[in-house]
């Protein structure tokens, strides 16, 4: 009871002000909880209703729905269209929908023949009404009529139904205003900056929301999570280095531009596939620029300074890397090798070794694992590739260590697990973090009222240690909610993979999410000494422009796998009939 009373008490006992602050301290986590839970309900609770793109009519008259843009036809249970006939191979053919609405059929090395209208093919277009024969099993491809398509679109649950994203966004807006209010009170010297910055944030998120409404898209949960995290990040910035709030907002602007551009490109697979090559090239160029122009900051040469701006190329390369790695199923099953991508990854890994950026190398490695796992046609080959590449990286790293002493990384590893024994040197950041997390309690000391803010910038408390920063000022509840929010996006990606249109999107979303989660893991667990501190950013929260841009870019991939009806601007509405012949 007395603990509860203490909650409302200030340094001068019970005053109107102390009660006001206490109510504010309580309102923020409650609002945050509502925001996260409401978004979780939509993102994790949606019914996975398949989209039907065409029909296959068997000789028996049975109609089989074609529910993806890429469909594996075969005898095995995990095929998308299961044809349980003895003559049909386990993996027989792939039926792929093209952006123009047409279809192709590809033989993927089946024992039996693949024929269209009686002629054997390896890969050919199929028109509606054509008879497909797989080792003698005949079926006819039939379109979804305009009427059927319209019915289907109407019958599928619209995104956000029963859990209006608009209302969640209203809650988020209240959350942001309360946060700004407290910051204005605790950091009066930065008053104008705080009000303007939060005003811009609120303006941008509503513009994006209304814009999507105009495009008849109603799923805004993914963006809401990003804006929620950004609101906290902006608060950290206001507390630690208010002067950098505008920089963060500019980065957000560029990030959202990348997000929209990428999202629109991903609507059409043909466009996306074209983008791949450009992206792969851009990734290489960015790293080459980094190698030439890079400057050493905190031991890693991963920064470029141009004019007054500085950025980390490796952040943007993450987007290029995923685009380069994503692939359609037809390619996966016909051209079974991954070597091009392995070499690309090796190039990136090599650059990171030279640049001495261990954290980024770990992140790219996990991204590679996610992609390699999805792209390899069987588990054994996946394991082989992953183990091989893993060993290669270890070898390269060991060689690099032998050649030059990587003091920066070595020092950080030396402190790991022994932070209390060397609390003024190697364990400095982590011990201060735990101390401040404990000081913050469950509800925090108040925005702009912590101690870690004195360690912003050079001390990296607003980037590497941001989990502790948020715990101290916003409370442990808020810090944990940030993590829940990100983990939830991860679960959403896994859930929605089942109803994805193309493996390109599944790979993209899964890789993007894996990268975001592993960043969170490295950041948070580094701060609390579960893992060595690697200096990786917390998505959307850490103060850092390049990271902000890259996170928004990665978010586009997640947006592109959201196939709920009318959910995502990065997914074409599916109510166009397939009856163009």
């Amino acid at each position, binding site marked *: 009871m007395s603990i509860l009373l203490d909650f409302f008490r200030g340094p001068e006992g019970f005053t109107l002000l102390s009660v006001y602050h206490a109510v504010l301290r309580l309102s923020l986590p409650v609002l945050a909880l509502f925001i996260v839970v409401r978004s979780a309900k939509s993102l994790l609770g949606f019914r996975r209703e398949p989209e039907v793109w065409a029909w296959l009519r068997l000789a028996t008259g049975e109609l089989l729905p074609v529910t993806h843009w890429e469909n594996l036809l075969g005898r095995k249970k995990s095929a998308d269209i299961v044809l349980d006939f003895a003559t049909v191979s386990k993996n027989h053919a792939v039926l792929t929908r093209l952006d123009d609405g047409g279809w192709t059929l590809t033989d993927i090395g089946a024992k039996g023949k693949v024929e269209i209208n009686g002629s054997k093919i390896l890969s050919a277009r199929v028109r509606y009404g054509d008879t497909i024969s797989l080792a003698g099993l005949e079926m006819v491809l039939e379109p979804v009529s305009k009427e059927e398509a319209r019915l289907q679109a109407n019958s599928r649950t619209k995104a956000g139904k029963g859990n209006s994203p608009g209302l969640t966004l209203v809650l988020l807006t209240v959350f942001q205003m309360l946060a700004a209010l407290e910051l204005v009170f605790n950091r009066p010297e930065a008053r104008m900056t705080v009000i303007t910055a939060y005003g811009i944030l609120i303006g941008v998120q509503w513009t994006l929301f209304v814009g999507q409404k105009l495009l008849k898209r109603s799923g805004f949960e993914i963006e809401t999570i990003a804006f929620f995290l950004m609101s906290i990040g902006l608060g950290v910035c206001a507390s630690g280095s208010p002067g950098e709030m505008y920089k963060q907002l500019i980065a957000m602007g560029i990030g959202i531009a990348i997000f929209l551009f990428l999202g629109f490109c991903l609507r059409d697979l043909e466009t996306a596939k074209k983008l791949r090559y450009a992206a792969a090239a851009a990734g290489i160029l960015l790293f080459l620029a980094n190698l030439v122009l890079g400057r050493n900051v905190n031991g890693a040469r991963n920064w470029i300074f141009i004019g007054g701006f500085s950025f980390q190329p490796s952040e943007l390369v993450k987007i290029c890397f995923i685009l380069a790695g994503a692939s359609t199923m037809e390619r996966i099953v016909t051209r079974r090798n991954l070597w091009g991508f392995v070499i690309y990854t090796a190039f990136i890994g090599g650059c990171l070794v030279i640049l001495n950026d261990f954290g980024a190398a770990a992140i790219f490695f996990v991204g590679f694992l996610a992609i390699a796992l999805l792209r390899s046609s069987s588990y054994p080959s996946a394991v082989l590739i992953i183990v091989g590449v893993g060993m290669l990286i270890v070898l390269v790293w060991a060689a690099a260590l032998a050649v030059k002493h990587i003091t920066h990384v070595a020092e950080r590893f030396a402190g790991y697990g022994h932070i209390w024994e060397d609390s003024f040197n190697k364990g400095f950041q982590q011990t201060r973090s735990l101390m401040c997390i404990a*000081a913050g309690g469950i509800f925090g000391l108040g925005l702009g009222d912590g101690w870690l803010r004195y360690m912003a910038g050079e001390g990296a408390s607003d980037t590497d240690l941001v989990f502790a920063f948020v715990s101290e000022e916003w409370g442990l509840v808020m810090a944990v909610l940030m993590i829940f929010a990100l983990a939830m996006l*991860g679960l959403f990606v896994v859930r929605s993979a089942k109803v994805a249109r193309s493996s390109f999107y599944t790979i993209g979303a*899964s890789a993007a999410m894996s990268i975001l989660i592993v960043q969170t893991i490295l950041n948070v667990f580094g701060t609390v000494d579960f893992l060595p501190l690697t200096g990786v950013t917390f998505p959307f929260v850490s103060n850092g422009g390049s990271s902000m841009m890259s996170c928004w870019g990665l978010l586009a991939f997640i947006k592109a796998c959201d196939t709920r009806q009318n959910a995502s601007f990065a997914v074409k509405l599916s109510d166009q009939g397939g009856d163009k012949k």
Partner: protein
Amino acid sequence: MKSIAKRTFFCLILACFLLFGVLTFVIRYFLYADRWVSFTGSPHVYTNGRLDTGEILDRSGTVLYSSETKQAYAESQTVRRATLHLLGDRAGNIPARVLRAYASKLFGYDKLNGTAAMERSGGKLRLTVSAQVQAVAMQAMNGRKGTVGVYNYKTGEILCAFSGPTFDPLDPPDLETDNADGRYDGVYIYRFFHAAYTPGSIFKLTTLAAALDQLPGLREERFTCTGERIINGQRISCTKAHGEQSLRDALANSCNCAFSEIALRMGKDALSAQAEAERLTESIELDGITTSRGKFDLSDAADNDLASAAVGQYTDLVNPCQYMVFMGAIGGGGRAAEPYLVSGAESGGKQSYAAGTKETPRMLSDEAAATLKELMRHNVQKMYASVDIPGAEVCAKSGTAEVGSDANTATFAGFLDSEKYPLAFIVIVEEGGAGSSTCAPIARDVLQACINVLDGE
């Protein structure tokens, strides 16, 4: 698509790993946050390099430490020296373990509100020790190295836990220049909790505790001592030939021949089991302090080693605090209270901690305890009647542990068989010569001081 969708489990594993890690961290937060928050130098709870704790008081209300005064430590130099190891020194060579353990309770830290509702002053930590008794112990030790411990075996309160040598924390010695004569050797060690000594003959109480249960009729047996016994070619000797004697005289004579015979009849396992029951090789935790482990290992012992171990030599080592608790267990009929140093903490005028009495596991049987009590009482009456305190029946045993050529450790341990003053004690003086002549007077002074303090309460 299906098989590709399934492989997004990779992302699921990462997400679960993240959630699992966060859950683990939250659990750790609730377990350890009060330690993290009082981390040395934390700007949240330190002002000018001193913990914002308030006061530390002894059992009579004497201020031992106050974060609100400039010198922080007690007014009286005697008290400062007598309580040094409890409070720690400024340089951190002697850590303030008790203070650190309760710091968060003193400034009113709670895990819900963090330091937001913290009291910057007014914390009070009450210790069970008496500064007055500590001072008597220090004077009685007279600069010798060793330790004096007294505790109430019914409640667990430690009244005295003195460790020597000591110094004034306001005027610490420079060990580079001030220790030419070795007087500050091991001064940073809190010997009562963090040392382990060869016990010598006080260990015969352990041997007897085991034997009384193992060998029925032992109490009535008679033993013949010729002054020495040869076991495995190894000589076990007594100070003189004790002749034929009863068990209680064998203890009073501290007859090595009789006890080696008892040990051999009883065997290794029974003695090891008794040492285990007394937790001699374990550490106990009390109020932020983890005691040092003793040693009792007969795994490679031949018969002569067993005989030697049974009289407190061989590789035997006991921690003073632990052995004092065993004395309490004899006094308490087989079990004692677990010792503690902090009776309570206050923050902002409200109690934030109150100690409670916990019992140790059983260390010996009722019957063995009763017999030992009788034998130890007889021992005092026969051998060191000068130690006896009117109104409190002192039961004790002395020891002279051979640890080197001429540097014997003098030991003396026992308890008061008294409802009013249920005190167990141990006195150890390094290079102290004979236990009875060196330690018994110290024990008498300190026990008398304890009784005076208790009478005053």
